[in-house]
C-alpha cells in the first residue's frame, strides 16, 4: 500500500517517502541474516548426522555394551569406551567440585569490599589472564612442573589411604589426579568470571535491604546476594562442566592415556576427548567407527549439559518485577 504524500511536504522532508533501493536493502539484509542463522543449524545437524552415520557400524555391532566394556583391541576388533566415559565424567565432576568453592569464593572476594579495591582488581585481572593461557601450555606445565611437584603429596595420601580403592595405586606420573587438577585450573576462570558478573548484577538496593534490617555480612552474602545471583552462577558452573568434558589437549598430555579401567585416581586413565586425540591417526575400519561412536556419546553428553544449563538458568532466575 502506498501512503499519499503531497508535493509541499516532499520538498521540505525529502525522505517522507523511502526510496525503493533502501527498502530492497532492508529485505536483502533480512534474508542474509536468516540464511546465516540457518547455516548454524545446518552445520550443527550435519555434524550430528555424519558422526552418527559414521558410527552406525559400531553401534549395531556393540549396542549399549560399548558403554560398559573397557576392551580396546584392534587385533580382535573388540571395542568399549567404559574407561573413557567414566574418566570423562569423573575428571570433569571432580574438577567441578574443587573449582566451584574456589571460583565462587574468589568471585565473592572480588565483588565484596572485604579488601581494598586495587587488590581486588589485580586478582580479577589475574583470573582473566588465567583463561588466556593456551591449554597446550597448561599441559606442558602440568607434565613438567605441577605433576612432579604434587607427586610427593599424592604419595603420602597413597601410603596413608592406599587401602581405599580410590587411592589404591602408587602415583607414578601421569594419571587422573593431575588431570583433574589441570582441569580445575582451566575452568576456574570461567566459574569465577561468570559468578563475578552475576554477583555484580545483583541490585545494590537488595544489599542495602539486608544490611538495613541488621543482617551481618555473611548472612547478606549467603542468604540474599548468592540466592539472587544463583542462576548466573549455575549457568557458569554448567558452562565449566561442558568445557571440562570436552577439554582435550592438556588432559591428553597428563592423564596417561590408558584404557585399562582402575578405580584409583592415581592411575593412568582416559577421557573420550583424549582417546579420540590419541587414536584417530592410526585408526581404520571398525576402530574409526568405534571412535565415532565415542565421539557421538561425548556430543550427547555435552548437549545434555548445555540443555540442562539453559533450563536451570531459566528455572532459577529470579524475577525483579
Amino acid at each position, binding site marked *: 500500500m502506498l501512503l499519499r504524500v503531497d508535493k509541499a511536504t516532499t520538498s521540505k522532508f525529502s525522505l517522507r517517502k523511502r526510496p525503493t533501493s533502501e527498502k530492497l536493502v532492508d529485505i536483502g539484509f533480512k534474508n542474509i541474516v536468516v540464511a546465516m542463522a540457518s547455516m548454524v543449524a545446518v552445520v550443527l545437524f550435519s555434524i550430528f548426522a555424519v558422526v552418527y552415520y559414521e558410527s552406525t557400524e559400531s553401534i549395531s555391532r556393540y549396542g549399549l555394551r560399548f558403554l560398559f566394556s573397557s576392551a580396546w583391541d584392534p587385533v580382535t576388533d573388540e571395542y568399549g569406551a567404559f574407561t573413557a566415559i567414566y574418566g570423562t565424567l569423573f575428571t570433569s565432576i571432580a574438577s567441578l567440585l574443587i573449582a566451584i568453592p574456589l571460583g565462587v569464593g574468589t568471585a565473592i572476594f572480588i565483588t565484596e569490599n572485604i579488601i581494598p579495591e586495587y587488590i581486588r582488581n589485580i586478582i580479577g585481572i589475574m583470573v582473566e589472564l588465567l583463561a588466556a593461557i593456551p591449554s597446550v601450555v597448561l599441559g606442558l606445565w602440568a607434565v613438567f612442573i605441577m605433576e612432579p611437584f604434587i607427586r610427593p603429596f599424592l604419595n603420602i595420601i597413597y601410603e596413608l589411604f592406599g587401602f581405599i580403592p580410590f587411592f589404591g595405586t602408587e602415583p607414578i606420573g601421569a594419571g587422573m589426579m593431575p588431570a583433574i587438577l589441570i582441569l580445575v585450573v582451566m575452568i576456574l576462570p570461567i566459574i569465577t568470571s561468570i559468578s563475578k558478573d552475576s554477583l555484580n548484577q545483583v541490585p545494590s538496593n*537488595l544489599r542495602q535491604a539486608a*544490611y538495613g534490617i541488621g543482617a551481618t555480612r555473611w548472612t547478606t552474602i549467603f542468604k540474599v546476594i548468592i540466592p539472587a545471583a544463583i542462576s548466573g552462577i549455575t549457568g557458569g558452573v554448567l558452562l565449566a562442566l561442558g568445557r571440562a568434558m570436552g577439554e582435550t589437549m592438556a588432559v591428553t598430555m597428563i592423564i596417561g592415556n590408558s584404557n585399562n579401567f582402575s578405580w584409583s585416581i592415581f592411575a593412568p586413565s582416559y577421557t573420550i576427548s583424549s582417546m579420540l586425540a590419541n587414536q584417530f591417526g592410526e585408526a581404520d575400519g571398525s576402530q574409526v567407527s568405534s571412535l565415532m561412536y565415542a565421539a557421538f556419546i561425548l556430543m550427547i553428553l555435552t548437549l545434555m549439559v548445555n540443555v540442562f544449563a539453559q533450563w536451570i538458568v531459566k528455572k532459577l532466575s529470579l*524475577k*525483579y518485577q
Partner: protein
Amino acid sequence: MNIGNNKMINKISPKNKKLQNDSSISVSLDNVSIKYGNTVAVKNIFCDIKKNQVTSFIGPSGCGKSTVIRAINRMNDLIEGCKLSGSVIFEGTDIYADDIDPVEVRRRIGMVFQQPNPFPKSIYENIAFGARVNGFRGDMDQLVEESLTKAAVWDECKDKLNESGYSLSGGQQQRLCIARTIAIEPDVILMDEPCSALDPLSTLKIEETIHELKKNFTIIIVTHNMQQANRVSDFTAFFNTEKKGKDLGGKVGFLVEFSKTKSMFNSPKQKSTQDYISGKFG
C-alpha cells in the same frame, strides 16, 4: 546487645552530659560532618531528635539529607571512602565508638529506602527473614500478620503470603518494606524519601501508616515534598547548601533551621527557609 550499657555512656564527651539525662531524646547529632573521600558533603550538624515523634528532613537535592540519615544507622559504612567526624549519640551511646558493632546499631535503627526493595522471596519470607536475622523466638505467623497489619498492607497480602514480594504494586511493596522494618521492632525507623517512587494514593496510605507508627517508634523521614513534611512531622530540619572555598567549586550541606514543624512553616526564622518553603527554590 551492648548498646546503651553503662560502660558505653562514659564514652560521651563532657559537653553532651546533659543529653544523658534528657530521656526524651532518641538520637542526637553532635557536630557531625561527613566526607566522601576528600569532598565534604555536610558539615557541623547539631540536632536532637525526640523520641516517639516524627522528624522530617527537608531541603533541595544534594544538600545531604540522605547522607545524614544514612549516618544515623551507619549505612554509610557500606560506601567506600565515606568518613564521619563528630558523634552520633543514640540513647546515650556514641554509635561510632570503636567497640560498637554497626550490625547491632542497624538492629535498633531500621531503615526504609527510597526505592521499594523487597527481597526476591515470598511476602511471608520478606518479614520472617529479618525477624530470624534478629533472633526472633515467637510465633512467626503472628508476627507476619501483625507487622503487615501495622503497615496497612495485610488485606492485600493475606491471600498471597507465599507469592513473591515483587508480585505487589510499588506502593504495596514499599509498605511491605515498612512491615519488614517494623517486624524487627527497632527503636528508630529511618525513611529516605519513602514515597518518591509512589503514586499519590499510596503516598497517602504510607502517611497514615506513619501516623500510626509514631506511637511505638521514633521516625525520621527525608522528604522532597513540603506538604508531606507539614502533614506527617512534628519537627522539621531544613538543610541547604553553601558554596565552599573559592577553588573547590563544590557545595557543602549544612543544617539551616531545626524546630517544630508548625513554627517552621508558620514563622521560619531564616530567610532561606522562608524562600524554600514558599517554593522560591529547590
